[in-house]
């Protein structure tokens, strides 16, 4: 089979795997891609990512634990989860297309920013207080539980909040902090 045809088939398969939800969580693990596409799957994902760039989409890699400082090893890639996400953000007027109210998104932004500033974990009570300053109390609990269900936040048995897998996949944390600090008070 010609090289071009080989990659065309593999990219088609990678697109199906990455776009369509196969498990409870979206995304595909590296080892699943390796089984379906072969050991050169990182190369296939790179070609797919180049195609997606024209559509303002990207293949996003979320590593287990912290992001590797250098080029990731094949073992790290096999354990990572791959998603398709937007590439350049979305206009705020389109945010409601996500099915979320403006209050829900503002609450999510507040909770995530606060947890980032607290070294990645913060007591539920503190996040709760912060949201209550701008949202009605009955809504705060509903929203926090919604963020947990969606995978943006995780809560441990000591009622500590952490950033969960979806935040790591969807939110550019450094850019968020920079933007917040850049706003005029």
């Amino acid at each position, binding site marked *: 089979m010609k090289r071009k045809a080989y990659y065309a088939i593999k990219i088609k398969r990678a697109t199906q795997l990455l*776009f*369509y*939800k196969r498990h409870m969580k*979206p*995304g595909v693990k590296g080892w699943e891609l390796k089984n379906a596409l072969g050991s050169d799957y990182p190369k296939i994902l790179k070609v797919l990512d180049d195609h997606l760039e024209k559509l303002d*989409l*990207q293949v*996003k890699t979320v590593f287990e634990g912290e992001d590797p400082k250098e080029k990731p090893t094949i073992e790290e890639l096999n354990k990572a989860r791959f*998603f*398709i*996400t*937007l*590439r*350049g*953000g*979305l*206009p*705020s007027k*389109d*945010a409601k297309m*996500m099915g979320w109210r*403006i*209050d829900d*998104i*503002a609450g*999510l*932004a*507040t909770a995530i*920013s*606060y947890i*980032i*500033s*607290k*070294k990645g*974990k*913060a*007591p539920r009570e503190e996040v709760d207080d*912060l949201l209550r*300053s*701008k949202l009605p109390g009955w809504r705060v609990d509903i929203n926090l539980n919604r963020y947990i269900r969606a995978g943006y936040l995780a809560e441990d048995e*000591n009622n*500590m909040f952490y950033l969960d897998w*979806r935040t790591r*996949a*969807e*939110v*550019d*944390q*450094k*850019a*968020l*902090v920079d*933007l*917040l*600090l850049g*706003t005029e*008070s």
Partner: protein
Amino acid sequence: MSAQEKKHNSERLQRIIELCKSVEDKGVDPFAVDVDHIIATLKKCFSDWESPEELALDAEAVQYLASVIQNQGDWVKHRSTSLYTDPFLIEEKLQRLNKEELVRLFTKVWNPIIELEQLSIPSMAEAMKYWNDLPPIDERWQRLDPTQVMAGATTREELIRQKILAEKTFFEELEAFWKTLKQKVGENEKILYWDFVGADTYSETLDNAYMTSFLVTYGYATLKLDPLEEEIFIIPLKEPRSGLSNKQMVSVPISVSHEEWIRWKEENLT
């Protein structure tokens, strides 16, 4: 040191553990813990600890203190990264921004995952097949009533034949085994452990070792260890010893592995 002082020090250690735990569990500032002072306290108390419980408490306190130091290290590492920002500054910014501004800002860095759910013709066909093969719920959840069995009588011989009852009671077997030991020892005072338990098959050897352990535990015999020659002897007692609980009991683990049995057998044959 008086018992009162010991109790007081033990409570201090408990408080240290609680404080260190709160750093981990409740996100208390790790630098709120005065590590030097805690180390001095632990050092001062350490010489008075005697019991294993007190030493375990001390070890636990040291372990939790180490986790606080690790937290302090992580904190310093985080401050040196580009993600570090003063939480108060962020909180102040969040308080000042209105929700529209916050959403505008967040959507610039938010790239939601694209996920699709769609039925395909093959999956519909597979689902149809599954549905057709699925038995009705009243068949699947049929209640199984327990079958009634008529009670009957049985005999002791039948229970022995079915190996539910043993032919002899355990103590009858133990006494018989004790007699065998006494016969084997004869005029001598003692017999080598392996010469007594060793048998033609490994399974018999294990049975003998099992019964011998009960002979010793219940005071029918005793063990004598020769540490220089590394030999173990069994000495049968004339009468079973009672009141063992008043003495200090010592457990003697003896390995009866298959390799040792082979070695014993080879030595015995030659």
